[in-house]
């Protein structure tokens, strides 16, 4: 399918044509549509997009954590070649945390305020077969690994700083030795210094334990330091997929280019903030054709009527009519 299919090892995770609806009392709204990608063991992929672009829905679907009003209406997710029952709570239970764990955004709320952190980390271990003693030992070891001193192990979440709480979340995610960790904006709630430290910790631990990481973020600058590959999502679809190097050097989708341009660069002075014009589409009011066309600087006639498909393009994939027929490089520069 793409360049990675040449590898002999089967992908750890294969998402194929995934579509999820959110049902309200009257209507049902498509949150993600035709999302397809592969994830190899040990690979770090960033899922980037504005809020409402479907990145969190995609990640939660993979983890089998969709909210009760969400329905998988198409496609499937395969884990190590076998289909995952992502819409069946009971069947997903053994898979959870032992295979796929999640680092949630905002550890203050994601940790239970009335339980000690060491017990919260030990809990999934006990659930997945360890004895209580083993589980507590493992929890203490993990806390040491993320740099929480031994005397703070029996603290409650509120007694720790924001950075420490996020480290606890990371330790918790590693508890059952999963092969995939989903980071849902794991550094967003932190200040800049803590953000850098927590991100570095995450990158180190990923290499050390050969974890596959799916990093959800709206911040492209986080991606460069921590991921191998980037998938850009817009209005429920993947619009571009490529290696970090490719995407930053030569973004193909106009949206990606605008995203990269909007990263504030130190030293650039006055032009620091360049927001993308227009508002992101809502689930209720989605533009016809390519959902990005109302904001796209290179929009054409066809963009308003026909949605572009995600096509192989060089080493990556892109969904844009600009790249329908012509060879890549010319077209991009012609419209730059």
């Amino acid at each position, binding site marked *: 399918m793409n360049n990675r299919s040449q590898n002999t090892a089967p992908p750890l995770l294969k998402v194929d044509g995934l579509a999820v609806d959110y049902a309200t009392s009257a209507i049902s709204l498509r949150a993600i549509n035709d999302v397809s990608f592969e994830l190899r063991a040990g690979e770090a992929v960033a899922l980037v997009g504005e809020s409402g672009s479907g990145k969190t829905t995609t990640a939660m679907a993979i*983890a089998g*954590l969709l909210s009760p009003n969400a329905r998988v209406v198409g496609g499937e997710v395969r884990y190590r070649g076998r289909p995952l029952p992502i819409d069946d709570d009971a069947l997903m*239970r053994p898979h959870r945390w032992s295979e796929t764990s999640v680092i*949630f955004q905002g550890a203050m*709320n994601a*940790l239970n*305020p009335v339980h000690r952190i060491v017990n919260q980390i030990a809990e*999934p271990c006990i659930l997945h077969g360890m004895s209580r003693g083993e589980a507590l030992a493992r929890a203490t070891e993990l806390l040491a690994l993320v740099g929480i001193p031994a005397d703070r192990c029996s603290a409650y979440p509120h007694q720790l700083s924001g950075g420490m709480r996020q480290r606890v979340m990371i330790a918790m995610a590693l508890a059952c030795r999963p092969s995939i960790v989903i980071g849902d904006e794991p550094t967003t709630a932190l200040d800049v210094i803590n953000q850098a430290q927590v991100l570095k910790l995450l990158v180190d631990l990923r290499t050390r334990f050969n974890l596959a990481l799916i990093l959800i973020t709206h911040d492209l600058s986080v991606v460069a330091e921590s991921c191998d590959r980037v998938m850009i999502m817009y209005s429920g679809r993947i619009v571009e997929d490529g290696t970090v190097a490719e995407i930053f050097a030569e973004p193909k989708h106009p949206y990606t280019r605008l995203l990269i341009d909007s990263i504030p660069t130190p030293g650039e002075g006055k032009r620091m903030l360049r927001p993308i014009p227009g508002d992101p589409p809502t689930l209720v009011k989605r533009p016809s054709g390519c959902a990005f066309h109302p904001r796209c600087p290179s929009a054409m006639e066809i963009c308003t009527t026909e949605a572009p498909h995600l096509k192989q393009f060089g080493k990556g994939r892109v969904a844009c009519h600009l790249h329908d027929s012509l060879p890549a490089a010319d077209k991009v520069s012609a419209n730059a």
Partner: protein
Amino acid sequence: MSRRIGGILIRAVMTLLMVATLNFVLFRVIPGDPASLLLGGARISVTAEQIEAQRQTWGLDKPLFPDQVIDYLSATLRGDFGFSFKFRGKHVADLILERLPATIALVGLAQVIAVLCGVMLGVYAGWRRGGAVDHVTTGISLALYSTPSFWLGMLLVVVFSTALRWLPGYGASSPGVIVGSFAWLLDYLWHLALPVLAVALGLIGQYVVVARAAMSDVVTEDYMVTARAKGLTNRQMLMGHAFRNAMLPIVTLVSLNLGYVVAGAITVEAVFAWPGIGGLTVEALNARDYPLLQGIFLLLGVSIVIANLMADLIYGVLDPRVKQ
């Protein structure tokens, strides 16, 4: 921690002081001579010596402030609330103590039943929000919540006592039973059944509403998503993560509620002629027996303060965040 307890104690003392102040002021607003009021008002004849003696004990010949206030407060602290009008010559404190056990039995039993049933039902309804159990439970609870419990009591009498003749609807004991025997205890509980049911039903409605709201809030918390992601079963999520957090607001509301429970019990006791504080209150009201009424008021104030203190203590145990 000590600062927190200090604040709690100050609040408790303030509340009691307000109750005492109100009693002091009210008693002096009533037309007529406080001394003769203390001896039974104008309704009975008393000698001038008696009035004079009373005037001295209570310091009514001294200036209102500060002497009378101080005398009043010290008498109150000693447990001397004066004499009842209606039960002539009897100390208010003795009358109250005599009637207290019956009310404690009624209120205590009803409270325990209501907390167990109400919290369990409400927690379940909030957990399975929007389900059939939720709709039925919430509907019934709202109706119970809006019903005066004494009226429930009257209905219970009509149905279970008058029509079906299953349970007694009047008094606390059958004639001829020896007080203190096992048969007496059974008979007592037998008489207690309907009053307890009346008080408990009203409370259940209230606690279901409260527990359901608390649980609905907890269910939407992020840590519940974490618990689900960890692979916990619904039952494990409920017992291990949701319940204890939901208990925090419930504990506060249930103990703050004690004043309302006693208030409800007063009217229920009147329906069933239950020989407790409620019955005493009605007698005091009918006879305009102010010293007795104020003694009862003080008792209610003290029990409300105690309930609040207990709520704060339990809350401190349940929620690690308050122990800083």
